[in-house]
């Protein structure tokens, strides 16, 4: 890291350095693109993990987290825009494919226009939205943005801001589809999107030419809501992002707050959290597998998967009292002690799972039709996985050996024995098989812990009023879908200045167009199912 600092300081004298959780770089906008290119080429920071829009009061800007895909080092870069009225930043879309969709999100909420991003449309909000809601000076007057009942016209062109040789910025329009494209509108109400997601799909016969993604149908503005709430009040929101990773998401936010408070979590709580995370991962993978098979027409597999998932939900219900939005993790530990028969129930589950997995493979994985439908469909290369910031089973089955539990270890994971499931094919079959193998690994982790739950407190002593010191923290966990991140920027009060949930599904949805080009319409379902994105996690 010191080496990076020296070299960068030599190349870019304007860059200011600081050392927080990671090496932190402050760079003016004029040098941002060059710095990003240099970090990518010379130091291997080729994965844009997060691009977070910020409003510091006087100035707007972005905070980026870059990851080296091989050494897993992380670096933070902060870029400020010049003014609030007409803020421009340079786009890094040409360096990181995922930046395209991240920058659209920032434009939507902060009004920062990115020079060179070919697609500066609204992402979540309506096209006729007035103002930029995440800015601190946003006018919340309901008369400005009433609940509009009229139909929103679909735009067929995108805007790109281009910087001329004289430094003047002008706009260029791009058409989304060619004039003679046959465009099928899939969603927002469609059985295969598993939620309200809209894909405008240009097809040539049965072959997909291009997909244009529309988000925001269930955007609830959770990040904005958090800014007005105290820290303990924010935790239940995480259950409502990826509802199949509820416990892992809240684990992430709690860890981020605990890190900021420098709070020591009791060992018993840590072990319980870890078991819960792995139960949740089983739950997530089972449902992903079941619904995917149903989409492929094998409805029976859904019920087989639900059968085992039901056992898991029963276990979770006995302890947490809920089956979906658990609200179980709290700052400093967990809310309740485990139920009396938790240990015996989990052991029963561990006995069932290997048999069940064998059955799944027998019914579905080995089936010739299933093989034909999945093998070679939607091949993701490891480079594309890094470029599009695809994490989780989808990235590992493409050959990018990245698992947050190993790369940025947290909780008690460093003590545990488990394999990071990696495959090389990168197709739908690999993603499907990777999930099944990960279920086996989750069982292995639970088996190591279930007999060794130590006695003690389940929650650390926490002050009545929780205030975080001034600063910023970024914490990631591995959910069933990939790397889920929480970013907190605090000014020293009881509520966050900015809270960002960096969701894996957002990036998974961003890669759909790349994977489906040239595939059949039916493959869109296969690819979507094996990527396993959850719409509430995309929209937040």
């Amino acid at each position, binding site marked *: 890291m010191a080496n990076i600092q020296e070299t960068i300081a030599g190349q870019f004298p304007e860059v200011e350095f600081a050392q927080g959780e990671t090496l932190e770089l402050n760079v003016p906008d004029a040098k941002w693109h060059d710095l990003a290119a240099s970090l990518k080429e010379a130091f291997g920071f080729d994965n844009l993990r997060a691009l977070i829009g910020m409003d510091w009061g006087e100035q707007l800007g972005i905070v980026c987290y870059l990851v080296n895909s091989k050494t897993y080092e992380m670096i933070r870069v902060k870029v400020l825009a010049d003014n609030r009225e007409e803020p421009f930043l340079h786009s890094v879309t040409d360096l990181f494919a995922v930046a395209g969709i991240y920058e659209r999100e920032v434009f939507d909420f902060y009004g920062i226009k990115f020079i060179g991003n070919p697609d500066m449309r609204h992402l979540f909000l309506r096209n006729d939205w007035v103002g930029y809601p995440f800015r601190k000076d946003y006018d919340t007057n309901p008369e400005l943005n009433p609940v509009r009942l009229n139909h929103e016209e679909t735009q067929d062109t995108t805007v790109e801001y281009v910087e001329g040789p004289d430094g003047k910025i002008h706009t260029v329009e791009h058409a989304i589809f060619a004039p003679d494209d046959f465009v099928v509108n899939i969603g927002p109400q469609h059985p295969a999107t598993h939620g309200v997601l809209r894909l405008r799909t240009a097809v040539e016969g*049965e072959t997909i030419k291009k997909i244009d993604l529309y988000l925001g149908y269930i955007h609830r503005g959770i990040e904005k809501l958090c800014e007005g709430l105290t820290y303990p009040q924010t935790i239940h929101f995480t259950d409502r992002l990826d509802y199949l990773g509820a416990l892992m998401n809240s684990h992430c936010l709690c860890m981020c707050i605990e890190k900021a408070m420098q709070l020591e979590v009791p060992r018993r709580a840590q072990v319980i959290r870890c078991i819960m995370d792995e139960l949740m991962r089983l739950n997530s993978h089972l449902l992903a597998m079941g619904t995917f098979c149903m989409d492929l027409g094998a409805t*029976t597999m859904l019920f087989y998967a639900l*059968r085992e998932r039901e056992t898991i939900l029963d276990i979770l219900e006995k302890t947490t009292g809920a089956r979906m939005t658990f609200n179980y993790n709290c700052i400093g530990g967990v809310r309740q002690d485990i139920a009396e028969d938790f240990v015996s129930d989990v052991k029963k589950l561990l006995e069932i799972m290997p048999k069940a997995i064998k059955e799944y493979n027998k019914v579905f994985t080995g*089936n010739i039709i299933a093989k*034909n439908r999945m093998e070679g469909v939607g091949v993701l290369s490891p480079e594309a996985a890094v470029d599009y910031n695809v994490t989780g089973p989808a990235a590992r089955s493409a050959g990018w050996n990245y698992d947050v539990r190993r790369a940025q270890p947290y909780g008690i994971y460093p003590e545990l024995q488990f394999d990071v499931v990696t495959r090389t094919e990168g197709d739908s079959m690999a993603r499907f098989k990777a999930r099944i193998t990960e279920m086996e690994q989750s069982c292995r982790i639970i088996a190591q812990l279930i007999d060794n739950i130590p006695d003690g407190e389940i929650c650390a002593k926490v002050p009545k009023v929780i205030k975080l010191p001034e600063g910023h923290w970024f914490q990631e966990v591995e959910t069933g879908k990939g790397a889920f991140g929480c970013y907190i920027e605090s000014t020293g009060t009881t509520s966050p200045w900015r809270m960002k949930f960096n969701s894996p599904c957002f990036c998974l949805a961003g890669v759909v167009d790349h994977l489906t080009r040239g595939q059949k319409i*039916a493959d869109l379902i296969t690819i979507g199912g094996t990527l396993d994105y959850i719409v509430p996690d995309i929209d937040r």
Partner: protein
Amino acid sequence: MQDLSFVTRWIDNLFRVVLGCPEWLTVTLECVLLGVVLLLVYAVLALFYIWFERKVCAAFQCRLGPNRVGPFGVLQPFADMFKMLIKELISLNHTDKFLFALAPFLVIVASMLAFAVLPWGNGLQAIDFNIGIFFLLAVSSIGVLGILLAGWSSNNKFTLIGALRSGAQMVSYEISISLSVITMVVLCGSMSVRDIVMAQDHCWFIFSGHIPAIIAFLVYIIAGTAETNRGPFDLPEAESELTAGYHTEYSGMHFGFFYLAEYLNLFIVGGVAALLFFGGWMPFHIPGWDAFNQVMNYIPSVIWFLAKAILITFIMIWFKWTFPRLRIDQLLSFEWKYLMPISLVNLVLMTLVVVFGLTF
């Protein structure tokens, strides 16, 4: 074997002699009566299949299936059908109104016509003419016209894709079905449904025709599943891709017609398989075992036919609830590259078998 034609003769006698009706009135009355009976059978079978499929698939999926309305949920399909009957027929703008309304009738008429030539029992057949099986193939392919019309007239991209898929699929698989039917006609030497059944008096064709008959049966059952648009060949109505395919825009009883026709087509495919390979209504006979054959003859022919047809459809339902769906290109290449060449070769094989008298 009990000959059930005494029923029809008695009715004929009733009209002609007892009531003294003239010729034209007798024929008209008999036709009306026959139509009513067939319609009733049609409705009852459809309701039975709705219930049967739900029960079977529930058993495969660790569920109970319908169990609240009536014993074992047998009244559930009646409730469903009543609900469907009282639902509004939503009329949409921007559709071709005439074709939109015509399509479900074409589909249901196609499957109704096929009922006329099925061998329901000994002496129970609406019409027996020398090209019976050919007639069946001809009328059952009217159905695809209805599906194409439904998809086209709905003026919706999903229905259009569904209808085109369906058209491509049904036209392709029709070839395999016809070839395997012709294979069996070669074995029998007649296209009359009654002759085909009677030719299996000593032994069912699946046994007497041995290898080529078994191949023809396998081809027939695969192509037949595809012909009925059922899983794993249910691409035209692939729910996860095309919402409901060609019948997305239909509501109420118009949708109900598609729904019923699907189940009845299932039964027709099963019934024709029973006719061609398992002797139609002919009881199970083993040459030489006369006592056994006599016992088998005591089971009424209607039960034999229904049992065979339902058993074969059970296998097709089993397919649906086990296999995932094929993709359109895989579906078509499967037909044109594998099924059709196999059935062509099989036809030659069957001809050789018949010519050299290698049948049992």
